[in-house]
């Protein structure tokens, strides 16, 4: 068995474990070339790409026909290199439109979107940066709230991992209406305090049932604990209904 046996597996494990920071540029390129060259050693190709007159930037943005002739590689490889360059350019420039969830309408609509895809009673945490753009979402647990042993760390840990500044909680109630129960109200207040202590802002905790949502945060801060307010969309605009709507 040669010393290079299992090389690709080791590289992938290292990428998973340590990320890209500990890799030299030619090693990163070598790893990317694995995807176009299934069996051969990609190290020489990576070096040839870097040694060109314009370095890596030139290699990633060069016309693929030219890459073919300079590198003597196959079309499959030349296309991948050009694709990586174009994706990098677009991704870094952020040229695509970014949706900002900076209004109550946008947040409620996001909550309803999650509820549409969630068949069970569950709670999701949505992570946003300080510009209100979506960083990710995680299903933090499934089941009825009171039955789950809820800990704020369930939210704080993934939020920090995402580099989030703000969090939106969405609890889905597919079968029992968008009514905030006392346990949800209490947990919202606990989460709000716990997340602030690690520099995270809890934007809201929406309880969603179908196309109706209620804010557990409003409910937690409301003086009249028994009054409920529900959000729904009517002709694409958000409408607030007082108790009795359901």
């Amino acid at each position, binding site marked *: 068995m040669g010393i290079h046996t299992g090389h690709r597996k080791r590289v992938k494990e290292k990428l998973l474990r340590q990320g890209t920071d500990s890799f030299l540029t030619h090693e990163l390129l070598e790893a990317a070339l694995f995807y176009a060259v299934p069996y051969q050693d990609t190290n020489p190709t990576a070096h040839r790409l870097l040694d060109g007159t314009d370095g890596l930037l030139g290699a990633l943005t060069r016309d693929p026909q030219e890459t073919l002739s300079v590198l003597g590689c196959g079309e499959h490889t030349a296309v991948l290199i*050009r694709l990586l360059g174009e994706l990098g350019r677009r991704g870094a420039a952020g040229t695509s439109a970014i949706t900002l969830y900076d209004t109550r309408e946008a947040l409620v609509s996001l909550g309803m979107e999650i509820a549409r895809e969630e068949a069970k009673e569950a709670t999701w945490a949505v992570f946003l940066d300080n510009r209100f753009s979506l960083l990710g979402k995680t299903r933090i647990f499934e089941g009825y709230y009171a039955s789950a042993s809820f800990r704020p760390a369930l939210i704080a840990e993934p939020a920090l991992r995402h580099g989030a500044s703000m969090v939106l909680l969405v609890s889905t109630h597919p079968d029992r209406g968008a009514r905030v129960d006392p346990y949800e109200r209490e947990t919202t207040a606990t989460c709000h305090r716990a997340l602030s202590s690690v520099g995270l802002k809890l934007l809201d905790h929406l309880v969603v049932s179908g196309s109706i949502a209620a804010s557990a945060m409003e409910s937690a801060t409301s003086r009249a604990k028994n009054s409920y307010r529900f959000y729904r969309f009517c002709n694409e605009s958000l409408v607030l209904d007082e108790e009795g709507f359901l």
Partner: protein
Amino acid sequence: MTPFSFDAFKSGVMEGEIAGMTDRALLTALLTYGKQKEPQETSDRLLHTYRSLSNILRLSTRDLMSEGLSTHSALLVGLVLPLWGRALFDSFSLKEPLDTSSRTGAFLLHRFCGERLETVYLLLLREDYTLLDCQRVTTGSINTTTLNTRALAEAAVFSGASYAVLAHNHPGGTTIPSRNDILATQRIQETLDTVGVPLLEHYIVAEGEYLPLLEAQGTPHPKAPQGYYDKEYPCISLETL
């Protein structure tokens, strides 16, 4: 929507048509290279959830895997921005001095490209303001409790640098500094002055923009070279934050 054809995609790229292709086509092609099952559906789902290519490419491998990507394809997606960031960084000529704010700013925009988390860099400059070293100091928010000022002082002294420049990013945010940014700068300035490596400036980088904090506060370092601030920057004061 038109079904994706990998062969047609490759022919299009070979004919120089990639710039006119949609984000969806590009992402689907990348997932096809990653041998992702149902690449088109996965690409549509990711674009629907995260709304932009930029957001998807900034996801961690773990997050991509939780969105249903195989490890193999998640690792490929995760390589795009780091490779592009290296390409930009390598294209920057480090022989020329970082003796103006716009040149330092351009260098930092390259350095922070694709950085997902708040990261702090310490730039160490020679007497002629050319770059001696660029060290990643910490990842996470900048404040005096997480920043080890002794480590900064050691890095400055051991490198033999004449000047230091600090920089950190606000991923997905604006260049407006926080109170912590300002307080930490004062503390680091004192530390580096003590060891004789003056902190010329502290830059905040966000979304293609940068702000030299000391200049914005109206307290530029007296050792900054003549004509260092070759652009106008907004004014910031601690009282208004």
